């Protein structure tokens, strides 16, 4: 582990696995030291929708390599632009979650190298879309239609 990685590990550990940077980007470190990053996109397309960018769970070293962090400051000053850059590289996803009390239904959309879009659900079932969505409403409509198809 590099020195920068050690410092970042200590920072996340010191915050007991939940670190929210000043720009509102939340870093979560799990029991197995894997990390995921969440950055909501505001405003969501509807009030009942949780919508944003997520860097899905990866081992700690992969997380450090993917983001090219040079130290804790890079993590503390990270903005949503970095998450968008990760999205365009296919390493982060757009999540669209319908939330009603304890009911939640989520789909995750990511880009591939040949500019196609892959959708996965919470059980990691994946399929490819015919087109690439860009507007929040497209993500929402697709998520809602899938939710109803599955008997929601």
């Amino acid at each position: 582990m590099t020195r920068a990685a050690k410092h970042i590990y200590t920072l996340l550990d010191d915050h007991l696995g939940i670190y929210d940077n000043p720009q509102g980007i939340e870093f979560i470190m799990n029991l197995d030291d894997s990390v995921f990053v969440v950055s909501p996109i505001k405003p969501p397309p509807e009030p009942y929708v949780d919508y944003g960018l997520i860097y899905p769970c990866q081992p700690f070293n992969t997380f450090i390599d993917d983001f090219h962090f040079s130290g804790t400051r890079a993590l503390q000053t990270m903005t949503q632009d970095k998450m968008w850059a990760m999205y365009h590289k296919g390493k982060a996803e757009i999540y669209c979650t319908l939330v009603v009390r304890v009911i939640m239904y989520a789909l995750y959309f990511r880009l591939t190298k040949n500019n196609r879009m892959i959708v996965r659900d919470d059980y990691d079932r994946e399929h490819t879309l015919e087109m690439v969505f860009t507007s929040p409403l497209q993500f929402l409509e697709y998520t809602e239609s899938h939710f109803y198809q599955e008997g929601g």
Partner: protein
Amino acid sequence: MKTEKMFKRRVLSAVTCYKQILDDECKIGQQAAKLSLQLGVSRNVLQEAFRKLYGETIREYKLRIRMERSLQLLDAGANLKVITRQLGYTKIRAFTSAFKKHYGYTPTTMAKSLT
């Protein structure tokens, strides 16, 4: 020969006090390093003594009780926004992903099985 590190009474008392704070407050705002200084011990010593006394690191312990608390809240019928806030996450997505990573099920699936 294996040597067992002995901790001073002051350190053990700080660890017990720290655990009490973790138990009382699911949502802990203070960093471990700052809190350990307030308790008069260094973070590394606190960490080491905590693991020795309770068999898991501070973060492991905190995550475990956070997840146990989320089950109690789901069972009590709390909604995801409330649970997220009470556990110290700022985003629903962060809580639900952490929950699924920990239990292998989404909170929705778990809530259905609890009813």
